[in-house]
């Protein structure tokens, strides 16, 4: 059974959901406190959502300097799969494991609502069980969700096919399809090696029918049992 480390910071609040979603996907999931540096033979790392260090200074800015992050950095550089969800995405950007930054939502409001996102790439460790172009509904819960990057970085993300998730208007939600003003409707990206993925929506909150949906369950199931490689 694959081992998944769920990293916890002071202020993480999606750690339980992530642990459970990973467990339900058939993974051996366990917590690693941010003061620790031993990832305990992890096969993958999840950095869950929340408000690490109260979002002081900037979302993810302080968490990036936690001792555990140097281990995550080494793990990622060796090709280990790392998924950052929401605040986890912000932390990965601050740590320069992913490019760009997440800025204050264009509409100012903290948004806690469902969004429709299109799976753009299935050649990452977390999306292989979806298919390209598939639209799924996931919750977002963020105040700083507006992905921003330099023009050249955005062009590079597109040309290297590193946009993994994009907000779309699937017609069913009576609200702006792009909830936060994100550049190019980007909801998730990966690094050039494709093993580090950051996404704003919360698949772990849509991984159990008792909470209304299992649309996000395949993120962690992809890790447990990757689908056969497809063209994309």
């Amino acid at each position: 059974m694959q081992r998944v480390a769920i990293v916890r910071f002071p202020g993480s609040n999606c750690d339980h959901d992530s642990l459970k979603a990973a467990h339900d996907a058939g993974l051996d999931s366990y917590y690693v406190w941010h003061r620790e540096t031993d990832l305990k033979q992890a096969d993958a790392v999840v950095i869950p959502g929340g408000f690490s260090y109260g979002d002081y200074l900037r979302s993810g800015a302080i968490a990036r300097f936690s001792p555990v992050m140097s281990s995550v950095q080494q793990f990622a550089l060796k090709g280990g799969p790392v998924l950052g969800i929401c605040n986890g995405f912000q932390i990965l950007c601050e740590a320069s494991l992913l490019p760009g930054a997440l800025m204050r939502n264009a509409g100012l409001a903290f948004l806690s609502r469902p969004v429709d996102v299109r799976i753009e790439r299935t050649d990452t460790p977390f999306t292989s069980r979806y298919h390209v172009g598939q639209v799924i509904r996931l919750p977002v819960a963020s105040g700083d969700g507006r992905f921003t990057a330099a023009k050249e970085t955005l062009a590079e993300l597109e040309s290297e096919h590193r946009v993994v998730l994009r907000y779309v208007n699937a017609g069913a939600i009576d609200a702006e399809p792009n909830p936060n003003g994100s550049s190019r409707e980007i909801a998730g990206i990966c690094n050039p090696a494709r093993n580090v993925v950051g996404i704003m929506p919360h698949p772990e909150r849509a991984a159990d029918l008792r909470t209304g949906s299992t649309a996000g369950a395949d993120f962690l199931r992809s890790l447990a049992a990757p689908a056969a490689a497809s063209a994309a």
Partner: protein
Amino acid sequence: MKFRVHVRVLPRAGLLDPQGQAVEHALAALKFGGISNVHIGKAIEFEVNADSADRAQAEVKRMCEQLLANPVTEDFSIAVEG
């Protein structure tokens, strides 16, 4: 020597600053006229020991680049008082 440091961090010009816009609208609602280009950032103040003001300035610049400002989205300025 001890220097008093004032760091100003502002969203990079040209990037959407929804907080600045909201405050601009609020000022207009209060009938303050002629207001434009409102931007909201952070002021960070601290004291630092250094051999000279130049050294202090260089040290604080490194702090800004590594932590106090986000190089993707923010610009900073530094004032050092002797």
